[in-house]
């Protein structure tokens, strides 16, 4: 039987795209003093990857470039969404980043605490007490 490796290539590209969309976008947004710079870079890179997908004769390469390119294009939007998450306190701010420092001073909800960095406790809980409670259940 001949194995078809296309699924594995698509899976690897999909997982890499999602991983970068989560971890990479978070780290780059936290470090970048502006939102427009990473947005423009992601747009350019995403379009270049899609152009590569169109020009590639190899199906594996075309598929992988198409998937990663599309996720990078989505990441261009995610930088702005991550900025809003920081303002709302849904992601921790980096006080050493001047843009985040401004959000910390302008928005009461902005925080340097990562509310998600704990195990579930099984019932509703206020964010302010959730980390202590989760620590107590360990």
């Amino acid at each position, binding site marked *: 039987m001949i194995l078809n490796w296309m699924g594995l290539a*698509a*899976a690897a590209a999909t997982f890499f795209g999602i991983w970068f969309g989560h971890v990479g976008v978070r780290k780059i947004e936290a470090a970048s003093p502006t939102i427009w710079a990473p947005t423009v870079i992601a747009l350019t890179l995403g379009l270049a990857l899609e152009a*590569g997908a169109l020009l590639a004769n190899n199906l594996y390469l075309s598929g992988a470039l*198409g998937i990663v390119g599309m*996720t990078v294009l989505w990441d261009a939007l995610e930088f702005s969404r991550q900025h809003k998450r920081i303002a709302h306190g849904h992601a921790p701010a980096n006080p050493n980043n001047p843009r985040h420092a401004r959000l910390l001073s302008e928005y009461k909800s902005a925080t340097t605490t990562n509310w998600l960095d704990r195990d579930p406790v099984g019932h509703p809980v206020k964010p302010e007490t959730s980390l202590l409670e989760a620590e107590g259940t360990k």
Partner: protein
Amino acid sequence: MNLFGLGLGLVTLFIIGLGFVWVIRGEYYLGYLWWPYIMGLGFLLIAASLFIPSVWGSALLGAVGASLVWGSTELKEQAVRAEIGWYPFNPNPKPQPPFAEQIKKWPAPHL
């Protein structure tokens, strides 16, 4: 001009988008402790894609499998989001997966 990659990228983006929906609904109704089973199903689909002769069929099965593996790593954080009120919290008892007590001792992975 090869349209395969562009098309596959668009469909995969849709599959990833669906992932956000099922992670929210799945955590709400089942809870996060099902993560090893969803991760296992994802890897099973990726392995099954090796035996699909169709290029599109294999690629889509692989993308769905990877999306399931990723989603399994999101369930724990989604449970925390619901507990602190960012998403609706389901107060009803959730079905416990087989070996739930063992799974509780494992650190749930997240990206």
